[in-house]
């Protein structure tokens, strides 16, 4: 009898632990990713804590993704904002680049479909494809200068391009980074660049376009070189028929790039090759190169050059989910981000372009941008970017 009791107690304990285990498993399964799961609990706790007492400051959750420097930036800006607005707290949720950006969008979409507001996400940072995707799914709040006065500082055309659904708070450009010890006369146009690549076999590399913006920019600039000027603002699939010439060129260049057709993964992949001297020239994000020069991970001989017309770069956007219930606080935060003061910090920290018009920036910063911003172009080809990557994989990588 005693033995039976013991065993039933054991059974009970076992069941209990299994239930706990299965609960964990279920949670992981439903959110689809490890980072999203941890973000999920963070988001949930923030919404429950702010719903408590009225005296407590309003806390909103800000999800952002990117490299470590983006995290640094928000870790600097947020305390400045909170010092000025003691009634608002910003909960920063950082999702390292490449791990969970898609699940974050899916979470906002899932919360909307389930009728649960914005899923505890009140502000979200991502690139243009996410803005356009959200535009189709009607996910983002329409922003106006009446709620965010400093939005007036932003270039009107850029705001119109995204239908006033997102704030382009900073920009970076893709430029050519090269080893000035080896390259004396860096190319100034795309055609000169192709010439250089052919004359210096295996000394040029660009990264797999599906893994990072620098390579993607090189591929898109090459493909759209043969198309009419305004094609870069169109997302009409009919245009894909005109891509052949560009892809033929990329295919041909494959023989001359690093390793006769090796395209490293991620933006950092080509930067590593440049740092170790395996190649002499790469397309790279200006902010990454400048930061790594400062930290000394790239040799001092590394120089930058913008082509004319330039590679496409692009702004990074902040979006407010339409169903967020803390929009007032978020508007105040966005207003702060678009002040010249905050923008100056963004420029210094990220080595990027400001999100607001240069004329609204302090004189010293205006001076530092002389000549650099000329060739800057923004592409807006929507979903076609995915098709380019797909075709690149089958035409160029697997040739």
């Amino acid at each position, binding site marked *: 009898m005693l033995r*039976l009791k013991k*065993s039933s107690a054991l*059974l009970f304990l*076992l*069941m209990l632990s*299994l*239930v706990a*285990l*299965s609960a964990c*498993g*279920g949670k992981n*399964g439903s959110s689809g990713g490890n980072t999203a799961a941890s973000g999920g609990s963070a988001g949930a706790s923030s919404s429950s804590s702010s719903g408590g007492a009225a005296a407590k400051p309003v806390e909103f959750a800000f999800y952002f993704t990117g490299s470590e420097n983006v995290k640094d930036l928000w870790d600097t800006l947020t305390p400045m904002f909170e010092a000025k607005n003691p009634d608002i707290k910003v909960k920063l949720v950082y999702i390292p680049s490449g791990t969970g950006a*898609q699940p974050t969008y899916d979470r906002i979409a899932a919360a909307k479909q389930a009728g649960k507001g914005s899923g505890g996400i009140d502000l979200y940072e991502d690139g243009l494809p996410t803005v356009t995707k959200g535009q189709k799914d009607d996910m983002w709040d329409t922003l106006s200068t009446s709620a965010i006065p400093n939005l007036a500082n932003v270039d009107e055309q850029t705001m119109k391009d995204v239908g006033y659904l997102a704030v382009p708070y900073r920009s970076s450009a893709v430029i050519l980074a090269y080893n000035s010890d080896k390259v004396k006369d860096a190319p100034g146009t795309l055609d000169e660049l192709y010439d250089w690549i052919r004359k210096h076999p295996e000394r040029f590399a660009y990264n*797999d376009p*599906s*893994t990072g913006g620098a390579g993607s920019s090189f591929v898109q600039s090459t493909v759209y070189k043969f198309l009419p000027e305004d094609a870069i603002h169109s997302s009409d699939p009919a245009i894909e028929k005109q891509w052949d010439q560009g892809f033929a060129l990329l295919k041909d260049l494959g023989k001359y790039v690093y*390793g006769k*057709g*090796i*395209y*490293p*993964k991620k933006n950092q992949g080509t930067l*590593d090759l440049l740092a*170790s*001297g*395996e190649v002499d020239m790469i397309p790279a994000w200006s902010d990454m190169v400048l930061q790594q020069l400062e930290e000394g991970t790239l040799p001092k001989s590394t120089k930058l050059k913008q082509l004319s017309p330039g590679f496409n770069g692009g702004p990074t956007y902040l979006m407010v989910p339409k169903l967020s219930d803390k929009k007032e606080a978020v508007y105040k935060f966005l207003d702060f981000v678009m002040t010249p003061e905050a923008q100056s910090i963004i420029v210094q920290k990220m080595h990027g372009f400001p999100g607001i018009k240069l004329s609204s920036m302090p004189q010293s910063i205006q001076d530092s941008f002389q000549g650099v911003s000329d060739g800057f172009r923004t592409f807006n080809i929507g979903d076609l970017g*995915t098709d380019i*990557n*797909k075709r690149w*994989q*089958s035409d160029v*990588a*697997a040739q």
Partner: protein
Amino acid sequence: MRKETKTGMLGLALVIPSFLLLFVVVVIPIIASFRESLKNDSGGYDFSRYLFLFTDPGMRANLIFTLEITCVSVLIILLVSYALAVYMRFSSGALVVWIRRMYMIPIFIPGVIATYGLINLLGNHGWLSRLLLPLGVESLPRIIFDEKGIIIANCWFNIPFTTMLLSSALAGIPASVIESAKDVGAGRLQLFFRFILPLSYKTFLVAVTFVFMGVIGSFTAPFLLGPNAPQMLGVAMEQVFGVFQEREQAAAIAFFTFALCSFMGYFYIRSMVREETARR
């Protein structure tokens, strides 16, 4: 009789939680992703996604590449691990002590770090080429961004655990068996094929299954060390799912990988069942 029913019910109760757990976290997701993989572009259900796997030249190259890498890796890993394990079991001396101390170190190094280490070691201007330069070796063959790199990484990740597994099996072979065989005049090869191999055969099968599944589903090393095309299935899956955003196609690749793994699992389970029935 009553007591037997009681123990029977207890046994059933003990099995049910783990069965439910398995059902929720394994069986349901597999069925769901199988269903997902059958959806075609127009919303209907057919096998077009699987047809694509075998007809698209790029995808077919990925499949062949993956199987090739997996088979070569499994072969090398098992050969090396088995040799190591046998050596550690039946030899003694300072070298064995050192191997025993060192061989598990790779387990404690995170995958990404080890992969970057391999890039630095084996890359074009890496340590290895710098070390070999004084010896007159001008250029190394390409190891990184090539299938060789993936195979080396697979060896690094899998040999320690496989050796551990096989060592435990070999440790279970009684020394008396070996000694008495030696006494009646069995040679080294005879010893190995007649006694050591049959007595560790089951663990060997477990090791094959583990290594096969680990290699075929690997991602980090193939992503960072592999060529752009063809890719291993794990990398292709990530690209199709994350970059091209074709959920159904990714589900088809995932299900196909699962089918390959369960094919391996089938042999493993069959041998287990045979063993159980033989014991009765």
